[in-house]
């Protein structure tokens, strides 16, 4: 897990009130903060002659 950092930000709120109004609560039921898997996504990474990476995506 990446550590929190606050360079030039200070806007993240780890103590945000979890209470939500009705519409917010309703919508959050179906929301997830986790990244959903991309079905069928394939990656092939190569390194170019100058050292930059290049990624071929296929589906």
């Amino acid at each position, binding site marked *: *897990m*990446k*550590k*929190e*950092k*606050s*360079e*030039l*930000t200070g*806007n*993240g*709120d*780890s*103590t*945000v*009130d*979890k*209470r*939500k*109004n009705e*519409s*917010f609560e309703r*919508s*959050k039921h*179906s*929301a*997830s*903060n*986790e*990244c*959903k898997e*991309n*079905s069928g*996504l394939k*990656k092939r990474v*190569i390194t*170019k002659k*100058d050292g*930059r*990476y*290049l*990624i*071929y*995506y*296929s*589906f």
Partner: protein
Amino acid sequence: MLQLRYDPIKNQLVAIATKRQDRTFHPPKDFCPLCPTKKGKAETEIPASDYNVVVFENKFPTFDKNPEKVDNKKINAGCDFKYELRQSKGICEVVCYTSNHDLYLEDLPLEKINNLIKVWKDRYSTLGKKEFVKYVLIFENKGEEIGVTLSHPHGQVYAFSFIPPAVLEELKSSKEFFKKKNQCLHCQIIERELKEGTRIIIHNDDFIAFVPFYARWPYEVHIYPLKHLQSLCELGEGEIVSLSKIIKELVNKYNRLFDFRMPYVMMIHQKPTDNKNYDFYHFHFEFYPPYRTKNKLKYMAGCELGAGTFLNDTLPEEKAAELRNC
């Protein structure tokens, strides 16, 4: 030379990227660096005879993946007032939407746009996991009027080592609203737009596209998920299809409006990737087309640049009706 210079008056960082002056400028179609490499021809950026979607590091980046240490002592030697340099750490990527030079985003079949959205999700997730990356900005500049130098359909991804100021402002107001009202500011705006309807362009099961009440550009449009989501990462398969449909429909409406391909800046504003809590935020797309009539551009000029206040010569409700009906 890649540097971040701190402006102590505006409290902002400025990215100095002198190498970008040398970037490829309107090459002929036969020498497009984003096309696949043709047999017997010079190698382009993509050493393959065809591709689906390709992502690579920008040859002319704004930020440096491995920046040298900055020496603030050296630049301030003998000076009482100190300027500040910061490491210009970051990653700049190019996303080629298709190997076909003449197919724009809106021309692609839905399935291909779905795939592009999956690539955006992957770049947000992959880059956002890096320790130094605080913000991942996915955007597309389209059209010469915007300053685009390569016409091959492509977008860009910038992995920032800081949260850029335009996003900071949105986060600040979203957080303050949430603290006061216990509601998402963006959800409230969506509810109001749905209730009034006058500024809506397109509305499907999962997304809404509207000209904001406070539009700065005549044909500015924001696309929001109806669900309270903070990033593309949270989209399921069905929602990706809905998003593809609304993007394709919107950009085709732009093209029909004046009967030419509308240039625009498109950006995706998502939550930062610094692992803090941004439950109060709501991800969305913003489109900024520069035209105010078929043959007149809107410019950023004195009031916008000098005062930070946008002048919009049009009524958002009227412009929304034009877009909705074309």
